[in-house]
């Protein structure tokens, strides 16, 4: 991270108001609007002319009619006026849409008539996401989302030049980390008008003149499009986890939805062979839908990479539209590692997480919000990912516990407090494996045999802990436990645990949560641990940019 560009970069994080990429209104639906307008005009022009001018009878094409009446000039003028109005509105929208980044917050203000102003405090950042939908990506633009905790609480900077977005993310993360650096002088200038100080930076390329400029622009775009998704300098290669496409394809083929699809297809084929074509048509739709879903899941997860950077975990994915999210340390509230039955022969696992940020982005693998950290990976990949998302939890004991938690069958002395034999009838298959472990600030819940599950919750993120007991459980001196974390796909609960063990767990977690929360400094993750080893395994990069 100690690239010389940091010092030399024309930082946008200087506290002054800046504007977005000039083509922003087009990317934000303008292209779509123009296309729709064109479509409507092309298809309905007779009807429209009829509707607006009450000329019910004209021969054939309305263009001929206009020509015949000698109104060509007026028609052209009308079109010109509409175009100019659209352009002016777009221009004004762009003028009014400004953002600024200072040491405390990221702020965006926008809107012509309805002014809106959104501000996110940097020490509350839950994640920084750069996404490049296909069309903006072709033009070298990217969207930067700074999310804070809450439902859809993101400050969106859409769109920025691609390179600018990368640079701004680095600056925002640096400011948020609390690292003591004097790289960028921060001078908030509230009243100052928005400056166009960095037009080059916003365009993402040098000012273009004529053909030469255009070709240079195109060349830059192509280079950007083909460049690796993850900047090789950003993370040590050892910490990068990638997914081979064939494994990704395999993971989708060997999934429950595929099984259902195949069953449906077989049933359809049989029915078609026995002759019942009417029924067939209704069944084709879900099959096609399922295929489309699987395909989009595949393309979205292509080029998946997870890497540790000094400012947290970076998860990037996407082939045509790309997405690239940075989660600073301590922003992950619960982790779920699981293995569906069909994946067991291959030894594949999936990792999902809970985060406080609930973004409206569609994540990889089709899930709402990017909560799938590893769509499919081997045991070694899982270990690497856990190291990245649970910084500091990577000693030998932790590895042994996680391995037991994933693969263990639940014998005595495997580090987990497992359910007693009297609970066997409740979980006939998995009672041996149903248990918990508390180790070094992390709680592990293990359960499930058909689908193997392991939940990990860092105590520093635990909101509260609850144990409960119903009448039947009381007769058997059993109880259940639940860890309360922020909402997400992961629910860390233990359906059955011995009553005495539940009490031990409750007391350990009640005390541990308080202690861990007190020791936690991740809201300014680089400020107070300058001397401590970096959690993300990239200690060498710490403070290198100072």
């Amino acid at each position, binding site marked *: 991270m100690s690239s010389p560009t940091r010092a030399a970069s024309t930082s946008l994080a200087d506290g002054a108001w800046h504007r977005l990429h000039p083509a922003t209104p087009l990317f934000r639906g303008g292209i779509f609007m123009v296309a729709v307008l064109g479509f409507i005009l092309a298809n309905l022009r007779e009807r429209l002319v009829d509707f607006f001018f009450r000329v019910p009878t004209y021969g054939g094409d309305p263009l001929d009619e206009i020509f015949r009446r000698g109104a060509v000039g007026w028609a052209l003028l009308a079109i010109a006026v509409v175009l100019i109005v659209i352009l002016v509105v777009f221009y004004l929208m762009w003028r009014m849409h400004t953002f600024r980044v200072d040491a405390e917050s990221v702020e965006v203000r926008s809107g012509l008539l309805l002014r809106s102003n959104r501000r996110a405090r940097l020490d509350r950042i839950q994640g920084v996401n750069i996404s490049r939908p296909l069309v903006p990506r072709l033009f070298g633009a990217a969207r930067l989302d700074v999310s804070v905790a809450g439902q859809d609480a993101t400050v969106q900077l859409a769109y920025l030049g691609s390179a600018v977005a990368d640079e701004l993310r680095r600056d925002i993360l640096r400011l948020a980390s609390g690292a003591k650096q004097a790289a960028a002088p921060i001078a908030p200038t509230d009243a100052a008008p928005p400056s166009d100080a960095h037009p080059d930076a916003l365009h993402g390329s040098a000012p273009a003149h004529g053909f030469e400029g255009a070709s240079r622009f195109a060349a830059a775009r192509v280079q950007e499009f083909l460049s690796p998704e993850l900047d090789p300098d950003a993370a040590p290669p050892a910490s990068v986890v990638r997914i081979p496409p064939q494994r990704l394809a395999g993971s989708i083929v060997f999934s429950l939805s595929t099984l259902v699809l195949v069953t449906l297809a077989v049933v359809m084929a049989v029915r078609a062979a026995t002759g019942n074509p009417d029924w067939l048509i209704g069944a084709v739709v879900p099959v096609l839908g399922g295929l489309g879903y699987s395909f989009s899941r595949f393309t979205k997860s292509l080029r998946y990479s997870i890497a540790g950077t000094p400012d947290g975990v970076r998860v990037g994915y996407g082939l045509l539209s790309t997405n690239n999210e940075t989660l600073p340390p301590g922003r992950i509230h619960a982790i779920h590692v699981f293995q569906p039955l069909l994946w067991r022969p291959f030894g594949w696992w999936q990792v999902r997480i809970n985060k406080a940020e609930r973004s409206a982005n569609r994540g990889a693998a089709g899930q709402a919000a990017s909560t799938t950290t590893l769509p499919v990976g081997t045991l070694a990949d899982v270990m690497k990912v856990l190291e990245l998302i649970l910084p500091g939890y990577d000693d030998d004991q932790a590895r042994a516990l996680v391995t037991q938690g994933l693969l263990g069958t639940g014998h005595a002395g495997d580090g987990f407090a497992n359910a007693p034999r009297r609970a066997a009838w409740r979980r006939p298959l998995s009672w041996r494996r149903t248990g918990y472990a508390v180790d070094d600030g992390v709680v592990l819940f293990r359960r499930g045999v058909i689908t193997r599950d392991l939940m990990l919750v860092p105590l520093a993120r635990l909101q509260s*802990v*609850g144990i409960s007991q119903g*009448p039947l459980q009381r007769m058997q001196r059993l109880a259940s436990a639940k860890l309360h974390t922020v909402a997400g796909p992961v629910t860390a609960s233990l359906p059955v645990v*011995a009553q*005495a063990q539940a009490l031990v767990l409750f007391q350990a*977690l*009640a*005390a541990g949560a*308080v202690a861990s929360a007190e020791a936690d400094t991740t809201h300014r993750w680089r400020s107070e641990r300058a001397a401590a080893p970096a959690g993300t395994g990239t200690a060498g990069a710490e403070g290198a940019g100072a």
Partner: protein
Amino acid sequence: MSEHQAVMGDGQAGQAQADQAQADPHSAEPLAPAPADGPRLELPAVGEWKRVSPKYVVVEVVGTLLFGVAACAAAAVLWLVADQQWAIYPGAVIAVGVLVTVALEPRRVRSIGYQLRDDDLLFRRGIMFQRFVAVPYGRMQLVDITRGPVARWLGLADLKFVTAAAATGVAIPGLPEAEADLLRDRLVELAESRRAGL
């Protein structure tokens, strides 16, 4: 509690007996560590539980009765006016359910308890379905005080401790209004001094 243990033996604790164990709410819980595997879920070595006002029973009973009366009235209308014979049965079931709930209400209210420990709030409720929750003060996002019509008439208020996790569900109902305000201020103060991130 020790005498109940002898009665109930191992795994044979009937529900009625288990409820009796809870029947005397104002007695202090044993301060010494309870036997590791007692007859029911009970935290060892905790201080005295603070209970909610006994008047809160009225609030619960009124709510339950209102629901019961409305449901029975609907059933009666169906039966007598619309001549739907079957409506008697759900009506009767609801009526019995309401009466049983009302009968158990005092016990359920007495089972609600909370404690302000050094660093966290401890909460319990339920007899048949027991639940214990510990929330560190630093996790507090906000404290909510609400007063329903009946509760206001009785001078009671409900206090809700909200964290970033929806599942926490710590709601202390039926506090005298002054006590609820005091508790809220105290909780905010404690949370301020132990501020933690999310």
